[in-house]
Structure formats: structure tokens, C-alpha cells
């Protein structure tokens, strides 16, 4: 199913796939054919009991019809409006746009996402040009060599009376400096020539890690295969090879944790046990005797080609800085400025206390996520040193009609339409529009 497809379109596609007539599906779901027609053309919102009735009639999990794709498109469109406040986008009619012109909406959303990624890369490149010591050294070498060559060659070109000894010295100096200039120029060109390199060169280390993990579904098969080896470091060395030092540092840290989790929870047994207990982290921790925090991380790394439920993951440090985000449909958090109401952050206030909470996102899609969060010490606490803490949150889609009361949260303030939220740190473009 293509990303960004709306619920009504999905219902229509699934109905046609199964060869069911619109009138028959409407009858089974207890609504009129004309109303179903409006829904299928995204002209009417759908949620709650009706989505369950239609899902049941189609023999599908409701999540397959709702699963957050709409929300992603709408969030991206609202972000696009927030980033271009002078454009006069009719934010209040975002859903109308997405419903009536889903293709254009998806295109706009995709372009905005691409522009945001390009902005981030430009910032990264600017930062690199300004602060990179290798670049500063290369430039200094080039200018110094040019200065020496210019000063020396000017003396020779002036045509004054220069004795043979000095002439020989100046010729030798020019030769030496021209060699140095050639080397420093080559180093500079090599530094600036990003065209032949992977676009990773313009990404932050965290972005490179996440992009690399995303390419393999956040499942690192090479480390699973060597789970019985004496030394996963050799495999990790191979995986990080060729990256710049900053990315190696970030990747190595993550992969060491991954390897430790894989050793503690061998894949085949863990998959079997996870299926048997419906992927319940607490039961898995009890049965395996492995710390819950490892179980949470491990559940987010199950092989994507197997039929496991999609589970997102967020890792942050004690300052709430995101170290890794594995998104799933409808769930993603920005690296900075995330809504503070997610259990990921609550866990930091109760280190060692597991939290299991339903989180409700605003909007007509009524997305719900079941979250399991736990913060833990990275080293034993001591009187004479500050604590080092990591917080982990596993996220999976919850059914819209799940009975548990949910925590109202959002993705980030500027596209969150909740009114009167005590945690709000900046105005929302949606509330501004709403007055």
C-alpha cells in the first residue's frame, strides 16, 4: 500500500481486491451505499465503531486501514504550512485538501519532507565548512604556499640585481612551495568533492545510523549471525568501516548495544517466545530472565521479512536528547522539540520503573499507540558522580477502540491542535488558525 494513501481509498482498494460490491459492503457495515461512497472518496471522516465494522466486513485488522498514513501526510502538510507562514496556506482546510486531492497532497508532503532534509544537510555542510579542522588546515596550507610563491616569484620577476646564491635559494623555495601547494590543493579538492560520495557525507552521524538501519529494517543480520562468535567487535569493525570518525563513534555505540541484546536474547528462541506471548515485553522479560530494557530494544529489531507486528523505538539520554528513532506509521518524533508528554520522558522521572501507557494523538484519525518505556542507569549510581541514564520506549499501534484510557500527546507543538495543553512550549499553527 503506497505511503500517504487515505483511509477511504484503502477501503475502496481492499473492497475491490476482494470483489465485493459497494452496496454489499455498505449493507454489512450497516450504512447506506451513498455514505460508503462518500467515505471511499475521502469526503467523510471515518473512525471508531464504523472503521471496526467495515474492517470486520472486509476481514481485516482495522490498523491496516488506518495505520497512520493519513496522519503522516496531514502532519507533513501542516509542517509545510508552519515553515512557510507567509504563504497563506489554508491550514484549517488541510484535511479537505488531502481528501480531495490525495495525489497532490502526497506530492506536497513529500516535497516538504525533501526540502526539510536538504535544509538539514545544508546546515550540516555549513557547520562542516565553518568548523572542520581538516578544512581549516587545508585552506591555511594553500594560502601559506601561495603567499610564499607570490612573494618569492615577485622578487625574481622584479628584475633587480639578485646574486646567484639568492636566485638559487628562491628557485628552490618556489619549487618546494609549489609541491606543497599541489598537495594541499589536492587535499582541499578531495575534502570538497562530495559529488562522488554517498549522500551520507552531508548527514549527521545519527541520521547516517538511522538511514543505514532503515535500509535493513532495523535488523542487523550480520550481528545475529555472529551471536555465537567470541568477538562481535570484528563484525562491528566491518560494519562501520569507511565511515567518518564521528559516525563510527555513534554507530559503534549502538551496534555494541545491539550485539549485547542479541547475545542475551538469541533470535530464533526470542521470536518464538514473542509470538507465544503476543509480544508482551513484561512476559518476555519474566520468561527469559533478561532485563526489560533489553527486551524492549530487542522487540524493535525483529526481522522485517517475518510476520511480526511493526514496532517503533525511541532512545534518548538523560537530557532527553534523541539518540535513535525508529519510526512506524503515524509515530515519529523530531530529534529536537518533541512533545514532552510521551512516556519516554516520563520514564526519566522514575528511573527503573517500567511504564505501560496508551498515547492518543490529536486529529480525526484518532491514532493510538501502546507505549512501553523504561529509563535505566548506564553505570552503577554513586555519591561522587552524576548518574548516566538512558530512556527507551517501544511503540506499537493500538486499536482505536482499545478500552484503556490514553494520555493525550502530540508529535511537536507547532502542528498539535490540542487546546489548553499545559505542556505547550510554542504556539500551534493550527490553533492560530482556529483563533
Amino acid at each position, binding site marked *: 500500500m503506497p505511503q500517504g494513501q487515505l483511509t477511504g481509498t484503502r477501503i475502496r482498494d481492499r473492497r475491490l481486491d476482494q470483489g465485493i460490491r459497494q452496496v454489499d459492503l455498505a449493507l454489512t457495515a450497516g450504512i447506506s451505499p451513498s455514505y460508503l461512497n462518500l467515505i471511499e472518496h475521502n469526503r467523510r471522516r471515518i473512525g471508531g465503531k464504523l472503521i471496526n465494522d467495515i474492517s470486520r466486513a472486509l476481514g481485516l485488522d482495522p490498523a491496516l486501514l488506518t495505520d497512520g498514513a493519513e496522519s503522516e501526510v496531514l502532519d507533513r502538510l501542516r509542517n509545510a504550512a508552519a515553515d512557510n507562514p507567509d504563504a497563506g496556506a489554508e491550514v484549517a482546510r488541510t484535511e479537505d485538501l488531502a481528501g480531495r486531492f490525495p495525489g497532490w497532497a502526497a506530492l506536497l508532503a513529500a516535497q516538504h519532507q525533501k526540502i526539510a532534509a536538504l535544509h538539514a544537510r545544508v546546515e550540516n555542510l555549513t557547520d562542516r565548512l565553518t568548523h572542520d579542522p581538516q578544512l581549516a588546515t587545508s*585552506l*591555511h596550507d594553500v*594560502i*601559506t604556499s*601561495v*603567499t*610564499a610563491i*607570490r*612573494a*618569492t616569484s*615577485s*622578487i625574481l620577476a*622584479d628584475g*633587480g640585481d639578485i646574486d646567484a646564491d*639568492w636566485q638559487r*635559494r*628562491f628557485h628552490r*623555495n618556489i619549487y*618546494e*612551495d609549489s609541491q606543497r601547494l599541489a598537495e594541499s590543493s589536492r587535499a582541499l579538492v578531495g575534502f570538497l568533492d562530495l559529488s562522488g560520495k554517498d549522500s551520507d557525507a552531508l548527514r549527521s552521524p545519527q541520521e547516517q545510523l538511522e538511514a543505514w538501519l532503515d535500509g535493513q529494517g532495523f535488523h542487523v543480520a550480520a550481528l545475529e549471525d555472529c551471536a555465537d562468535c567470541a568477538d562481535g567487535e570484528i563484525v562491528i569493525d566491518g560494519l562501520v568501516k569507511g565511515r567518518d570518525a564521528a559516525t563510527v563513534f555513534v554507530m559503534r555505540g549502538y551496534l555494541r548495544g545491539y550485539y549485547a541484546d542479541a547475545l542475551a536474547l538469541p533470535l530464533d528462541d526470542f521470536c518464538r517466545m514473542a509470538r507465544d506471548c503476543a509480544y508482551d515485553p513484561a512476559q518476555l522479560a519474566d520468561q527469559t530472565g533478561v532485563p526489560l530494557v533489553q527486551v524492549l530494544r530487542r522487540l524493535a529489531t525483529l526481522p522485517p521479512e517475518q510476520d511480526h507486528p511493526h514496532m517503533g523505538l525511541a532512545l534518548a539520554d538523560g537530557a532527553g536528547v534523541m539518540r535513535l528513532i525508529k519510526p512506524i506509521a503515524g509515530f515519529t518524533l523530531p530529534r529536537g522539540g518533541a512533545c514532552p508528554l510521551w512516556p519516554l520522558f516520563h520514564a526519566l522521572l522514575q528511573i527503573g520503573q517500567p511504564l505501560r501507557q496508551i498515547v492518543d494523538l490529536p486529529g480525526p484519525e484518532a491514532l493510538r499507540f501502546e507505549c512501553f518505556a523504561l529509563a535505566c542507569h548506564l553505570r552503577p549510581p554513586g555519591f561522587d558522580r552524576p548518574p548516566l541514564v538512558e530512556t527507551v520506549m517501544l511503540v506499537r499501534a493500538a486499536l482505536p477502540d482499545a478500552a484503556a484510557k490514553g494520555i493525550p500527546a502530540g508529535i511537536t507543538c507547532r502542528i498539535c491542535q490540542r487546546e489548553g495543553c499545559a505542556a505547550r512550549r510554542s504556539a500551534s499553527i493550527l490553533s492560530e488558525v482556529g483563533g
Partner: protein
Amino acid sequence: MTGKQVLLIEDEPNIIEAIRFILSRDGWAVATHSDGTTALEKVRAVAPNLIILDVMLPGRSGYDILRDLRDDAATKSLPVMMLTARGQSKDRELAERLGVTHFMTKPFSNAEVLENVRTLAGW
């Protein structure tokens, strides 16, 4: 004309050689020094009429040396011409705040160096 002395504090040997040549040919006595850490001692020993001071030096930067020169009554008003490969406005502003007499960015022309030395030393 003899007796006018320039102290060139620079760590690039071929730049030192070129500047020394053009200044010597113009009649200046040129002393040179390449280490930032001991530059102030050299200044006191030579007592030059003008200093040409590179910014990036081993041990201590030209900015640190300039600051100390301006804090010392004996060198407070000594003309100092700074040379730098970094010609950004913030570098120039920093040098001016510290009391530089003239600021030159590399690469420079020999004529420019000569003219500035003559002007600053009141030739």
C-alpha cells in the same frame, strides 16, 4: 636609514626568506623569530622599530602576543603589522580590538608589505 629594525615573527621559512630579502634590500635590519612562546623575549632583546606578526604560530597565537605587547608600557605603542591567512571580518575586528596597527591578509604583494612597513615605521 640604518638602525631601523624590523622584527618578523613568522614560522614559514620561505615567507621569512622572501620578506627578509625585500626589507633588507630596502635598507632595513631584519631580525626573525619563529616561536610564539618565546616571542616576547625576542621583542625585548631586539627592541625593534616595528613588528610583523603572524597570527598562527607554534606555541602561542599572534593575538596573545599582541595582547601582551599592548599591556606592556615599553611596547604599548610599538607599531605591529599582523599577517594572517584568515581574512574574515571577525579576525580583523579581534586584531583591532587588541590594538593592531595594521592588518594584512595573505597572500600579499611585496610592494604592499614594503609600503606599509615604511609608513608604520615613520620612514
